[in-house]
Structures are given as C-alpha cells and as structure tokens.
C-alpha cells in the first residue's frame, strides 16, 4: 500500500481539460459497473437470474483503469468475476444481462452465462471459470499479436488466487522469454473465496513475476488514476516490444464471493469491509479528486449515476423480456464449420 501511495504522491498531476473528460468518463464506467452489479444482485435475490454471479463491486477502478489504457482492438481475458472487465472493455449492458439470464440475445447466445462472457467486437477473449485458466490463452494471443505484428496488446486479468495455479508461471516464463506484448493484471482482493490470501500464498505476491524477470509494479487498485497511469505506461511499453509486465492491484470486493455468500463473519470482519467501503471506495476517491482539482460539482456525478442507472434498468428489462434460445440451439456451435476436405 505505502508503495502505491508513494507512487500516487509522486505522479504528475494530469493536465487539466482533456483529463476532466477522461476521468469523468472513467467515473461513468465505474458507476455503470456498480449499477450493473447491484442490479445483478437484485435479479439474483428476486430469483430472476439462474445460477450464481461473482460481483465486482469495490474493484471497479482496476478494470476501468486498465481498460482505459487499451484500444478496442487490444485483447483481454477475464475471470469468474468478470462483469467489470467486460463492461470496461466495451460490452453493452443489455446483451450482458441477456447472457446472465440465459437469453438468445446474450453475448454467448445464452450458452455461456455470467462466467463466460466473450465478445470479439470488443476484443474480449472470454471470461474463464477455471481459476488461472486463461493465463496461457492470453499469452498465446500475445504471441499471435507479435507474430502478426498488429501492435495489439493483451491484458490477462486474474485474482490473486490464480497465483496458486502452475499454469500462470509456465505462461509468464514464455512471455518474458519471447518478450510478448502482455500485461498480467492481478486483482488482489485479499481473498480466495473464503480464505485470506496470506493463508494460501507464501512470500510476497509481487516476487512471483519478478522470478521470471518480468517488470512488476504494485498499485493501489482503488485509485483509478493510478491504475490507469501505470497501466498505460506498461501497455505502451509492451506495445513498443519491450515485453510483458505484471501489475499487482490491491483491491477489495465489497460483497460476498458470490451473490449467495451472505454470512461472511467466519472469514472477515465487518470492520474490514467498512474500512474499504468507506475509506477506499474507488468512485468516492475519484469524485473527491475531480471535485477538488477541477471543481466538478456533485450534481455532475449524480447525473452520471442517474444515467447509468437508467441504462442498467433498461438493459435488465430488455433481458427479462428477451426470448430464450430455441431448443434446437443446444446442438449448435459444438463445432465451427470447416472447409470440405
């Protein structure tokens, strides 16, 4: 944390003007993710959503800060806690909801659900329900980008729990060996499900990528400006062919591991939750800064919030009304069509 805070203090304040717009845009995106996730929770508790979802609330600054440093052509891979990544990379709220409700209009035609949102249009290679499961996929996309020389960068999002998966180390080794344009973004939200990461990870997390010689930085994941500035530097570095980097973001999920995880007292305290929610909220932090540095009025934030809420409500309504896939679709898309041999 201190590390990250030092960096924040040292960071040059962005030039005004352009940055107000930029950061108001990030505020909007974070607000949209939060509104989206609140609606997901509501759909779940009112039994309108099948299955479970892992809410991203509290971690918005990571997805938004990182994805703001990417072009639409750049790629991401996401996780079981992936709604924020997908939205920040450019997914639409309505088709997201449709997917969560298993509707034909969803990003995966209803076949993927919450944990598998994927979208070629916005460069989303897909969320993954296997912890760490996309580490190599993302690295392979970076290999392809390098081979094709198309200048694209790949971001691989994962929780700190994925540091338990050997695959990640195998992939990072090759990324560094071959200087692939990839940014590994570790969202350390402190918990692997119901277990604190200190109980599952020996040593310091940031030392893991360093073992492969990968350039590594740690930031306060609750400060979208810091996340953005750092990610941008690392993404541009990768784009210039200087190889992979690892961005460790300290963050927190406000809700349970999934929507059904209500009683959390056996693994974390209310005080801890309150601390992060009250002292470290990414929306509040950004709003405070915008208000202070640029005299942005509170009403501007309210307006944004109202607008994203309306978008979310409309999106959810669309999804609720949307039809389920036709039953015949169950056997479609097992295989892609191939040329005749």
């Amino acid at each position, binding site marked *: 944390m201190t590390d990250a805070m030092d960096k924040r203090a040292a960071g040059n304040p962005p030039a005004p003007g352009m940055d107000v717009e930029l950061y108001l845009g990030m505020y909007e995106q974070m607000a949209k993710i939060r509104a989206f996730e609140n609606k997901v929770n509501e759909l779940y508790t009112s039994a309108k959503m099948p299955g479970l979802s892992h809410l991203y609330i509290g971690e918005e600054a990571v997805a938004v800060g990182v994805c703001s440093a990417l072009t639409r052509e750049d790629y991401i891979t996401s996780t079981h806690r992936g709604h924020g990544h997908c939205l920040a990379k450019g997914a639409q709220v309505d088709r997201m909801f449709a997917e969560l409700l298993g509707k034909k209009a969803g990003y995966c035609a*209803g076949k993927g659900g919450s944990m598998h949102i994927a979208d070629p249009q916005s460069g989303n290679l897909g969320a993954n329900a*296997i912890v760490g499961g996309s580490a190599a996929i993302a690295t392979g996309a970076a290999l392809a980008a390098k081979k094709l020389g198309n200048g694209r960068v790949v971001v691989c999002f994962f929780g700190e729990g994925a540091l338990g998966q050997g695959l990640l180390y195998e992939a990072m080794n090759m990324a560094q060996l071959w200087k692939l344009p990839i940014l590994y973004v570790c969202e350390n939200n402190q918990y692997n499900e119901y*277990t604190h990461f200190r109980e599952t990870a020996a040593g310091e997390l940031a030392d893991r990528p360093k073992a492969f010689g990968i350039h590594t930085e740690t930031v306060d994941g609750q400060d979208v400006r810091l996340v953005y500035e750092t990610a941008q530097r690392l993404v541009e570095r990768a784009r210039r062919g200087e190889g992979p980097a690892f961005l460790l973001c300290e963050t927190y999920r406000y809700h349970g591991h999934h929507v059904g995880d209500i009683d959390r007292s056996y693994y974390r305290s209310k005080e801890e939750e309150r601390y992060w929610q009250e002292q470290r909220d990414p929306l509040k932090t950004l709003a405070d800064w915008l208000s202070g540095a640029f005299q942005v009025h509170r009403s501007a934030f309210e307006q944004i919030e109202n607008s994203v809420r309306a978008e979310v409500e409309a999106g959810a309504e669309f999804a609720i009304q949307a039809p389920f896939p036709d039953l015949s679709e169950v056997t479609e898309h097992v295989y892609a069509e191939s040329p005749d041999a």
Partner: protein
Amino acid sequence: MSMQNRPMREITFGEAIREALAEELRRDPRVFIIGEDVAEAGTPFKVLSGLVQEFGPERIMDSPISEAAITGMGVGAAMTGMRPVVDIMFGDFVTLVMDQMVNQAAKMHYMSGGSWKVPMVLRTTMGATRRSAAQHSQSLHALLSHIPGLKVAIPSTPYDAKGLLKTAIRDENPVVFFEDKMMYRNKGLVPEGEYTIPFGVADVKRPGSDITIVATSSMVAVALGAADKLAEIGLSAEVIDPRTTLPLDKEALIQSAKKTSRAIVVDEGYEQYGVTAEIASVIADGAFYYLDAPVKRMGAMNVPIPFSPVLEDLTVPTEQAVFDMAKTLCGRV
C-alpha cells in the same frame, strides 16, 4: 453386514458424506483432508461443515488453489504413512489433476513392482442442471474409469455414499469418489453406526423382470422414476446400480440383462466414449444370446453443457426419456 436391526435415520447425502469422513477421521489418525476452502467454509457445498471444529486445521487443511499439487501431495503423503482425502471442488477440475492421478497415483504400485502403495481418496463432484455452465457441470468419471490402477466410486444414495466412502478411505489404492452436487440435499435412510460397502458389487435398487435399467449416481433416481411410470403401464423394470464403475460388477449386470432380455444404460457423463459405452458393450457381449433388443445408451448429450436453463435441461436424460426408451424397447407403442 446385517443392517436390518440397526436403527435407521433419514439423513441427507451430504450428511452421509460428512459422517463417513468424521468416523474415519476419528478411527484413524492417519486420515486427513486437504482442499480449497474445506476448513471454516466447509466447502462451497457446506458438506464438510463442522469438521474443522472437531478435528482442527491440521487435519482439515485449507489449501491454495492448486489442484494438481494437492493431488500429488496426496500421493506422496499416502506413500509415506498417511491416508489423505483430497477435495477437488468441481469434478470439471479433474482435468487439472490428470497427470498426478493417471501417471502417478494409478501406476505407482505397479511400476514399483508392488513396493509402494497409494492409499488416497480424491473426492470430487459431478452433475449438471445447477446453471453453472460448461466448466462447472460436467460428469467426468469416464476419464478416470479408463485408467488401470484407479478405483472409481459413484454413489446414488446417502446409504451407499457413506458405506462406499468408508471403504474408499480404507482401500490401499487410489480411489476417485464422485458425488453428484445436486444430490447433497437428497434424503435417505442410513443406519446408525459403522458399516462399509464393498467395491465392485452392484445393487439392485428395484427388482423387475421386463427390462433392466442400469443407472449410476443421479440417474438412479431418474431410472426409478421411469420404473414407476413403466409399472403404471404394466412393465416391470429392474433398476441396477453398479455403484463403482471401476471395479465394475459385470456379472450382476449381465445376469440382470439375461433375466429381463432388454437393457438400457443411463449415466450423466457425455455419451460418446463414456460409461454407457463400456456397460452397454459388456452387456451386449455377455448377454448376447438372451437379448431381445439392442442395449440402449442414454448419457449426457455430446455438447459442452450450456448455461441457459432451457438448453441445459435438454442435455441430461430424464425420467420421461428413459420411460419412452424402455417402452419402445419392450415393443409398446
């Protein structure tokens, strides 16, 4: 094993699992559990709730998210005096432990000419219709059943679950134990106190004479439901559950088919190259001269399991589908 006089209680499948584990943990200090969120959380399915309170964190060990390594550590600990029970949350994740199970655990005893033994249990889950999509819904027991050196149990009732799990823990070999996560809350009669169920002994869940329905795990209830319906139209179905796919009680399955002269095999794994293939071909061979109709297979549809409830429900054999198939096989239109 005379259970008859024992007081019986109704407990859930999940409770039966927990009882088996608790009893074995008490009985044998070498037994320990390792897995993700097995201690305070008692697993996401809450099946292990309370165990850490009784046995402490040294015996109910929370691990990092490292399926391959905890499985391999199970192998090493089993070889050197412990009886590990490795918990793999979703059966879909057995893909991560295949090398440790297939190339290590399964072969250790043989490769060492009998010198080393690997008495470990890998507990995991199976079963669809939980709206968990393609990576959290599979029933991958066929993958493990293919491998000599492993044993594979796949219980269908609380009674069987408890007895088979105790046998698994006492077995001197690596055993993979598949629990259908949709059955954890199903209730059934379980006697008080100690009992075990031998591996490789099929159980007739309902006797019958017109057709044999071989069913595993959650499909036993489906088969029993179908048998009820068949009874209504005057057809007597025998429902038989192999309980372990490896070893497989071929004789019992063949005998049942010889008696009824017709058979269907129902299992929740993918149909292609799955458990239904082995069992159907064993019966088709062993009961060849007695069969009045081809042995039919009903497995999960050969598709990745879709999220959308309307689609997911299509992928698993249903009571109605089994009933229809049985009726057709018995020549009713």
